[in-house]
């Protein structure tokens, strides 16, 4: 899945500025995440039209990059996230960051790992359900 990563300073108005740019381009945000940081951070966004979002943000002079992240669909029952992560952990993978959101009752787990190729292989082998 495509995700946008936008460099942001910890300064009042920075986030609103980004959101307004996306609003004006009629882009809908599906999920987004930023950890609390001291001086700067990375605002990560999943949206309905990442290619368009990338170009409008870039045109506004923002420092943005587009990358592939993993997105796994979870069944609507307890322990599902633990099951997914345990499969990866057993395979020797560590998680760089993770967040999740809900789409039509299903949980979506978004993450990046230390080893992209190995993660792909494990997902395929274990038959984990990727979000399209």
């Amino acid at each position, binding site marked *: 899945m495509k995700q946008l990563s936008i*460099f942001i*300073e910890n300064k009042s108005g920075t986030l609103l500025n980004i959101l307004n740019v996306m609003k004006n381009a009629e882009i809908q945000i599906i999920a987004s995440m930023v950890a609390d940081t001291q001086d*700067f*951070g*990375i605002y990560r966004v999943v949206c309905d039209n990442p290619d368009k979002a990338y170009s409008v943000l870039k045109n506004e002079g*923002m*420092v*943005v990059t587009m990358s592939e992240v993993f997105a796994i669909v979870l069944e609507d029952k307890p322990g599902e996230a633990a099951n997914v992560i345990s499969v990866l952990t057993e395979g020797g993978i560590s998680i760089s960051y993770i967040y999740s959101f809900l789409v039509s009752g299903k949980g979506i787990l978004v993450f990046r790992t230390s080893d992209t190729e190995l993660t792909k292989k494990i997902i395929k082998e274990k038959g984990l359900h990727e979000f399209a």
Partner: protein
Amino acid sequence: MDVKSPYLHPEYETLSREEISKLQTERLRETFEHCKNVPFYAKKFKEMNLSVEDINSPEDVRKLPFTTKQDLRDTYPFGLAAVPLSECVRLHSSSGTTGNPTVILHTQRDLDEWANQVARNLWMVGLRPDDVFQNSSGYGMFTGGLGFQYGAERLGMLTVPAAAGNSLRQIKFIKDFGTTAIHAIPSYLTRLYEVMQEQGVDPRKDTKLKVFAIGAEPHSEEQRKRIENMFGVKAYNSFGMSEMCGPGVGFECKEQNGLHFWEDYYIVEIVDPDTLEPVPDGEIGELVLTSIRREAMPLIRYRTRDLTRVLGRTCPCGRNHVRLDRMKGRSDDMIVLRGVNIFPIQIEKILMKFPELGSNYLITLSTEDNNDQMTVEVEVNEGTDDFAKLQSLEKEIRHQLGDEILLKPIVRLVSKGSLPVSEGKAVRVVDKRKVYQ
């Protein structure tokens, strides 16, 4: 040496203006002849058709050519030596900031005269051979170390080469050795006071401190007063520059009303930095110094780039050597931070090595908790999804800047377009230290 006398060298310190003028003329003529040993000067004198007969007063120095720091770099390392190297006994060098470093050579007589100037200054503010002098200044190539060491010894004081830093040890020395005087940069003294407080040491009760010599970094009158009030110790402003010798060139007397520049050693001019014409007393201009008592490397009309003004040419202390105001800034863009000379171009050079960074940056100098510090803000150019990469980028910039400018600034990565862009020449340095007021 009469310990009751307020003067260490009364034969020079109490000269009348007329006598100073006569001595300067004599020494300028000697220096002119001596400089003919330097091809750089010999060529200029010839081109300008100058002879010693042109020099009949100190003001005639205006007929002579200027010397700049660039001239020192261009003739690196020994091009301005006026004596064979075999007669030189010491070399000091400034860091090679924007090109070649500058090299300053000394003969034994130069070192003796340098020590004499520092001793004169310390005597002037009341120090005598029974005092204990702790030199909490960097040693090595920085002239504040050896300069004060030899000067304090020349005066006859017990001298402790404590060097910079390690506050706990400094405080132990002050207490155990009965230190009465310290030379340090002003920001270090405020730091020392903080550590004393943490250790429960009251400088007024637990130490014998009475005199501070402060210099090598710009500081305001307010900062001096604060230091004096913290410790209950008089703090005297010192001016030095390695091109002239080092510390000793100018020093405040007990009146604390400007620094006496020793006119038996230097001809002092204040000029308009643009027209290079002299400005009237009281007006701010660039300090230009001619060393008239140096053997190894006399410099003629050296442009210091420091801005100041003449406060007076007489003084209640009985010394008629010109009094100059504390330095008001620089006529170039050099930054002086914690005794270190830094040019913004050095910082730019490092920042531009990182492809992740944009070309816009801002250097801010500020005072936090009595410590002067530098913050470098730089715009990020390339996006990344890896937060650790940004952190290590920040760390790497800080590390490389530290290697270049010898102190570690705070580095802040900021978004593209968030730094002010001015019309024409960009503002790269904001000084919030307010030291020049």
